[in-house]
């Protein structure tokens, strides 16, 4: 059985599809990564349109609380195996928004991050490096963030709730808006 797992993990590592959640500045680093200069497709990594199809959730830049809500929703819509890449300083410690009232500081309090890419901005080389690293981890069976999330769901949930209760509904007077729609 373990051989089978190894084979599966090997192919998983060779074929990782990515959903990038770009909140702002980080997005600019991705086009070069995808296109002819650095060409991430050679590692079997392609951008995907929806969380259902994706293996990697790449989160670039800072996460406001309202944004976090969507990230969590998207993450939960992805199916295992799935991995999270935290891109840039903001996902690690809040970066230049470290003292902002509505930006979270550490992403992995809320969802399990498998690999952080430090820097502001990280260069495409760094991104590719993280992809290779992730591939090795997957093939060695080490990248198990999604299992951690299931195991420690109460903890993550508590953390999420703590910040998310500060958000208000998107639409305060929902009926009014939807009536127009």
């Amino acid at each position, binding site marked *: 059985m373990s051989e089978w797992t190894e084979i*599966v993990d090997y*192919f*998983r590592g*060779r*074929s990782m*599809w990515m959903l990038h959640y770009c909140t702002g500045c980080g997005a600019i680093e991705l086009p070069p990564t995808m*296109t*002819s200069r650095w*060409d991430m*497709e*050679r*590692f*079997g990594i392609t951008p*995907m*349109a*929806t969380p*259902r*199809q994706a*293996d990697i959730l790449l989160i670039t830049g800072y996460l406001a609380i309202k944004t976090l809500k969507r990230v969590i929703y998207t993450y939960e*819509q*992805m*199916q*295992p*195996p799935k991995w999270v890449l935290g891109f840039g300083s903001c996902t690690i410690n809040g970066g230049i928004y470290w003292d902002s009232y509505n930006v979270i500081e550490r992403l992995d309090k809320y969802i399990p991050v498998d690999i952080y890419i430090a820097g502001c901005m990280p260069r495409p080389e760094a991104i590719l490096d993280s992809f290779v690293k992730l591939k090795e981890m997957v093939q060695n069976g080490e990248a198990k963030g999604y299992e951690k999330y299931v195991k420690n769901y109460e903890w993550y949930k508590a953390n999420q709730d703590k910040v998310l209760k500060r958000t208000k509904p998107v639409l305060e007077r929902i009926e009014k808006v939807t009536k127009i729609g």
Partner: protein
Amino acid sequence: MVIVEFLIKLSQGFGIGALALATGLLFGGIARKIMARIQRRYGPPFTQNFMDLFKLLSKGSVSHGWAFDLGLVAGFVPMLAALMFLPIGPFTLFPSDSSLIMIVYLMMMAYLGMAMGVLASGNPNSAIGMSRALMLMAGYEVPFAAVIFSIYFFSKTGYLTQIVAMQSGGFMNWNIVKMPLGFLAVEIVLQGMLGEKPFDQAIAPAEIASGPMVELGGKYLGFGMIQHSVALFLETGIIVDLFLGGAPNFWIFIAKQFVLYFVVVLVDAILPRLRVHEATSFFWKLPLFLGILQAVIVIIQGGVLNV
């Protein structure tokens, strides 16, 4: 005896299915490589599609209920079934049933199943994608019909095997020489059938979140991939049988298929996407004109069948 025969056919059928799938996936991989090279990239390995498929089948997924499951299974299964009636090189599993229209309609069942699955997911993006795919189909099937009916009339038979047999004996007997306009029309149609640019409105990823596939993940997406690969094999295979005289052996068959597909990939690499109604009306203009012109020529040549 019947059982033995059945088992033989069964194993042969599995062989054909596996072969077609492998070829389709390989073509896909090569296409990605070609595309990368055109864009001056290194590109993924040409086995990338195999790895992708394997990963997809082993990955978790969400289902929206039994209609979703049934639809997606029904989305690729009829493709495989249609494959069994296709003359592949010298080999045909059911030579007495290789009727072209039947194959076309079996393929349509796959679209029906696929549509049912993705629409059962209840996502509007998939509905939009499906509506686009269907509109596109209304476009390309018309010239395709004109051409295949010309061939019917020209060859006086509806069996692919016999159409292939009529083209034996050298290049000059191929239908591509006898009906160049029809071939041209079908090559354009193939672009639409395979959903390659400029006819990839249905799965426009950045626009409608990959359209029909929006809710598909894991094995469901894998099924979609199987369907696409087999359809690739099937559609190019039909055109090879219709116009390029079939093939004496399997390798030449695949080579001919690849030539057809290569053109499609090249076009795909350089053209942007059309809007869907532009695409549909395009099919009703140039390819249909070519197909009809071909039909007129065939009728003038062939005269009237005595019934």
